[in-house]
């Protein structure tokens, strides 16, 4: 029996995880509030203090695989920036992120109907250059993106003119650079080739599994804020809701719901680990006892 439990068919585990994930999504609940961490507050405070009209570069570097984890934070940051009347230039370094980003922008234009395309937001589209694209943007933005997603000359986009009349020519001219990334090219390349070379103010978000990879950049002040996975999104949503309440539409989004699922799943996995160890030690004790009896 113990041996069978030790080699439990993994499909039972899969079933438990499926049920534990689906139930909180079907019957959402709000068990506890998520505590906000300093790296999250870093991005929130930056966007909250940037003057209206500041131009932010937002790189949406992920594809649908990670959307469940990263989309809540993307939406929360964009909602915050647009609510604060900042202007956002959006791009992606992932081919699979092109339509996803378009969809997010579509949602933003519905939530913020006053937004004017190419003035309050612009979508530069996808660039296949990976880290070379970032390195090139440090030198010249319009050479890297000569045309935007709609085929319009990037140089003529009104959003690339700052409030003081000066043109945004390269990465350092943006008030803030944010990359939400699920891997490479992503946050790490933005730190090495973008922030490292231009000195621009950089913040970002990543999947929870990669968060420790980027914490060293946050500690070294190469990034001033960092959001980690679904929880990061939930933390940002909480900050948004605490400060602006109902002023921001959908401030409490899928991050806040998702993080409850996370609670249930985490506890289930802890239960599995403990269960597995109990069986393991029980089987070891039994083996020791039977060996002793034989002697």
């Amino acid at each position: 029996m113990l041996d069978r439990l030790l080699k439990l068919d993994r499909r039972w585990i899969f079933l438990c995880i499926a049920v534990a994930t689906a139930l909180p999504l079907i019957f959402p609940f709000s068990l506890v509030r998520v505590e906000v961490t300093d790296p999250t507050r870093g991005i929130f405070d930056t966007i909250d203090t940037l003057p209206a009209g500041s131009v932010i570069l937002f790189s949406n570097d992920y594809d649908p695989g990670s959307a469940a984890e990263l989309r809540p934070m993307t939406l929360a940051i964009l909602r915050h920036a647009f609510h604060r009347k900042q202007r956002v230039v959006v791009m992606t370094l992932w081919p699979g992120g092109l339509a996803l980003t378009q969809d997010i922008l579509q949602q933003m234009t519905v939530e913020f109907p006053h937004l004017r395309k190419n003035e309050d937001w612009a979508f530069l589209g996808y660039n296949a250059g990976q880290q070379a694209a970032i390195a090139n943007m440090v030198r010249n933005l319009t050479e890297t993106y000569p045309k935007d997603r709609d085929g319009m000359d990037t140089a003529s986009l009104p959003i690339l003119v700052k409030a003081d009349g000066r043109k945004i020519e390269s990465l350092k001219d943006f008030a803030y650079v944010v990359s939400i990334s699920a891997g490479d090219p992503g946050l790490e390349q933005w730190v090495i080739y973008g922030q490292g070379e231009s000195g621009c103010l950089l913040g970002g978000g990543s999947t929870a599994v990669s968060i420790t990879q980027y914490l060293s950049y946050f500690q070294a002040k190469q990034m001033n804020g960092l959001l980690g996975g679904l929880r990061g999104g939930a933390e940002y949503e909480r900050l948004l809701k605490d400060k602006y309440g109902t002023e921001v539409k959908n401030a409490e989004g899928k991050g806040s719901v998702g993080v409850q699922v996370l609670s249930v799943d985490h506890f289930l996995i802890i239960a599995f680990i403990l269960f597995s160890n109990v069986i393991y030690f029980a089987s070891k004790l039994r083996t020791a006892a039977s060996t002793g009896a034989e002697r």
Partner: protein
Amino acid sequence: MTVRRLCLLALCLVALPSRSLPQSPPPAPAGVAAFDTPNDKGESVSVTWNPVAGEKENSVVYEVRISDRAEGPFTKAAEVKAGEGWKDEAPDLFWYFDSNKGVHHARIDPSEALPPTEKAKLQKVNEAIKEAGRPGGDASLIPGLNQEQRELEESIGQENRQIRGRAHYYQIVAKTKDGEAASPPVAATAGGNYFNTVKTPHLLLTLFLCGGIIGFIIVARRGKELFLRKIPGLAALDEAIGRATEMGKPLYYLTGRLGLSDNEKSVSTIAAMIVLGKVAERVATYDCALKVPHTDPVVAGVCQEMTRESYIRAGRPDAFKEDINPYISTDQFSYTAAVTAMISREKPAAIMYFGYYYAESLLLAETGNSVGAIQVGATDADHQLPFFFAACDYTLIGEELYAAAAYVSREPILLGTLRGQDLGKGFLILVAIVGALSATAVALGPETFGPLHYFVDFFKTPFAG
């Protein structure tokens, strides 16, 4: 009485000027110097000056002014408040030297000196773009932006470069509410540099590391025996190949998810390919089936050639099959789905994950585990190491991936490289220990251990930008 009156009068006379001091303009800033900013690409001129006495009490504001003529007129290029804008705040340009302390600094882009008329034109262009910018194709069709404005807009970049390359005059004006005083103008020209001195520690470290590696390669080539500690994961390589041969099942070898030039991590793909060459040779010797599914078409092509040569070297060209290196897909999860399906169907006896991995690591390794394969994971993707630990029998951590090729082949070039790396690592450990102790000592006793900060600053400066 007369004496007291006289004393009072004297006191008044002494006190009067001191009371009237705040109402007089501040003194002109002294020690003004303008020079090409070191270590930049010729984009700016640096202006430094000594603070005027009592700058904070009198709320002095400094204006850096620029002109293309010594006699002016001067235009404001920057403003520095009292207590701000210090030279030692820009170690990426000037290092953290003591002589930089207590000196004000402003970095000026001389293209600021654009004639006012040109500036006004530029402003107009920007306004026209702002009003006219709508999606719809060619920007030349944007109404309100005439040809002249467009040409001017395009020429601004060119003009800025020309302006930066000319000599300009700079002066510092100290301002208080009571007036202002200007320093005599000083001339400077922005220009490029031939060496970024701040990167000296970088260069020295690079030369040291490269020198060490090349030195040890030479030593190894001369036939000196270099000791290599045992790496359990690689020691299991023969066991895995033997098991696959016995069971009549294939051995899977994956080179990671990156191509040859995707990013700075692509070097791990090269390391994985080098090991593949050696593994393929042994596989050919044992007459075991090999499969190397690829996510990058270039890597697939190169590996095809490498495995072919390995089979030839093993004396088994007949055993080489064209479908050893199938190209699956560049897309992450298409590749993962296809490879997990192949693993489920063919149930390989051993799977080796070398190179750089992302989220697919656990999906692949768990599937491999479920079919009972011996698994060796070797990656420098530190974020995926926990998954390989959980699902693989052996895991090579980080740099062991690079050591693997040397371990498997015992080639002098690779062994020498490894020893060179060890030298570099030893040096870095030493620097980290001495640096940490120095920084702590300086923090605890700046009086006694002050000079130690030069050591810390030397290694800190290149990363100050």
